[in-house]
């Protein structure tokens, strides 16, 4: 529509006119038909985007529903917001007897969370496992990300700048483990971990996620470092920098964006990971993903609580998606495709 001269990344076709030819003639001549199609397109896209948002929004809405509203037939679109789901998610509660309920209702010193629990005739007896699991997720994802990006940037630099023997095979091998179903990898690791006492430990999970994400970070970072001209370091080395100094003072600052994007992607991968956590943790190091489907209340599935847990878990990812939108393409293709 707008007369962008050919994309600079376009592959030149033999016999084609020079890439820099300016097709400016089309700028002001957007016909009425074309404008109309564009508007129709925009409307269709908006409708599709809204439809695609429904499941996520519905989950977010359910998180703020009361227990009866969450399972109302027909489903309630308009409802009175309640924090019941969050209270059920974060606390363990005990059912009160009739006399106790009367006694509690007479009290005026109840905190808001207690009041919400009281609506269902319950009292809070302590925090649930969920905050701890969320913290586990955070620790395991955070620490493993630091290691996999740290090791990854070193390996990526070496692979990018030096002829490592068997480089292509190594890089392919590094990538290939990412393509295996997690269960395939987990069986021997489970046995290994049980032998050395790493089953259900934070360190075991950190080690596994580091190894697992390293493949991704090496590939992605290599792409970013490949783009930094070698001449920068070489010039610095002519000026008397050692190779290490050049790496630290020239390459690393240049690769900041790439490192940041890789870090966030790695964080999301470990944060979202389910299969390894399900099979290699049970209690101490259990992360949030395998726990969310199991948030069960007294008598039946507490959908509001599950939705609250999902929401708490997804919000960071949604925010990050917006921050990362320029790098999404690269991230989801292991750096294979760089630019749109």
């Amino acid at each position, binding site marked *: *529509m*707008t007369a962008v001269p050919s*994309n600079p*990344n*376009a592959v*030149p*076709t033999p016999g*084609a*006119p020079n890439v820099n030819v300016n*097709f400016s003639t089309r700028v002001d001549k957007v016909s009425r038909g074309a404008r109309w199609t564009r508007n129709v397109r*925009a409307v269709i*896209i908006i409708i*599709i*985007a809204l439809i*695609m*948002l429904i*499941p*996520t929004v*519905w989950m977010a809405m359910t998180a703020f529903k009361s227990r009866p509203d969450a399972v109302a*037939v027909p489903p309630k679109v308009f409802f009175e917001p309640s924090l019941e789901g969050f209270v059920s998610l974060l606390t363990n509660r005990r059912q009160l007897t009739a006399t106790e309920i009367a006694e509690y209702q007479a009290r005026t010193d109840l905190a808001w969370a207690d009041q919400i629990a009281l609506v269902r005739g319950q009292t809070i007896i302590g925090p649930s496992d969920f905050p701890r699991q969320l913290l586990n997720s955070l620790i395991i994802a955070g620490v493993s990300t630091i290691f996999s990006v740290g090791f990854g940037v*070193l390996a990526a630099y*070496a692979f990018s700048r*030096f002829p490592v*023997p068997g480089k292509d095979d190594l890089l392919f091998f*590094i990538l290939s483990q990412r*393509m*295996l*179903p997690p*269960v*395939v990898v987990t069986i*021997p690791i489970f*046995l290994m971990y049980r032998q050395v006492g790493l089953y259900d430990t934070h360190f075991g999970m950190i*080690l*596994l996620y580091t*190894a697992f994400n*390293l493949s991704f970070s090496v590939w992605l970072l290599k792409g970013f470092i490949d783009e930094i001209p070698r001449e920068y370091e*070489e010039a610095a080395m*002519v000026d008397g920098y*050692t*190779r290490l100094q050049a790496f630290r003072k020239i390459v690393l600052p240049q690769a900041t964006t790439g490192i940041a994007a890789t870090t966030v992607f790695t964080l999301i991968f470990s*944060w979202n990971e*389910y*299969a390894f956590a399900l099979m290699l943790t049970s209690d101490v190091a259990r992360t949030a*993903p395998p726990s*969310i*489907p199991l948030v069960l209340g007294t008598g039946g599935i507490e959908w509001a609580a*599950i*939705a609250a847990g999902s929401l708490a*878990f*997804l919000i960071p*990812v*949604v925010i990050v*998606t*917006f921050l990362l*939108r320029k790098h*999404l393409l690269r991230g*989801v293709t292991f750096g*294979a*495709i760089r630019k*749109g």
Partner: protein
Amino acid sequence: MAQARTERKLTSTTTAPRRAGGGRQLSDNRIVLLFILPTMLLLIVMNIFPLIYSLYLSFTNYSVISTDAPVWVGVENYTRILSDPDFWHNFAVTGRYTLLSVGLQTVVGFSLAMLLRTKFTGSGILTTIILIPMMLSPIVVAVFWKLIFNPSYGIFNYLIGFTNINTAPEWLGEPQLALWAIVIVDVWMWSPFVMLLCLAGLSAIPEYLYEAAAIDRASGWFQFRRITLPQVMPLLLIAILFRTIEAFKQFDLVQGLTFGGPGDVTETVSVQLYRLAFQGQFNTGESSALAYIVLVVIIAISNIFILALNRVRES
């Protein structure tokens, strides 16, 4: 390692003189070794060793929960799996699932990309909104889709027009529908991925191709078939291969939505493998054999992927 090669590279590409006897300075060879070492060590400990270990286990009758030492049984595990109709059933389920979901994602993703191709005010934000599902945790997605699919209080049936809960389909409970339910969720989650790659392909098509076609009065369909499609093909291919591998190893969504049920109609190979290895009898030996069969299939698929990737890189 590579002493000679690194040396040659160094003298040919750098102009920096090598400082004579430079005290604490590390040679480039050392740096390469040091930089790659942590990655290689981790890979050996966490990948190569476990794979060799499980290759050994696949020839034994070992079980995690038994105290007996592994006994060598030769290829018995492999012959048992390959002659087991359940295995072929699960492979067929996985194949059907992969075909359906990747096929639909390709169509939906490519259509979305065609729609979003020309920018308009707000199209950037809309693109990001459409991309959100693929960043979410599959297991959490599965859990809230379970609520959405619920036959009485889920909204899915209401949205597609079944407002009577007595006649509304039970998506996760009916054998003919359960696989489709998983396909629907997977398409919702991953069509944006195909869209993203197609958008990249579309934006790289040089405008002059269309200019030339317009001068030749080529029809829209002709332009689509002869310019758009061939130009997007390499990236579309990559998207399809990525999705094929991912769909083939699908575990999270199935676990979250159906646990392989009802019966075994949605039991994919990954779910079967999980059950064999970590539930019931804990048949570690047999599950290792199955894992190796899956491994071979995945390596075959990913080799195609690497071939396609290289072809795209070259062009």
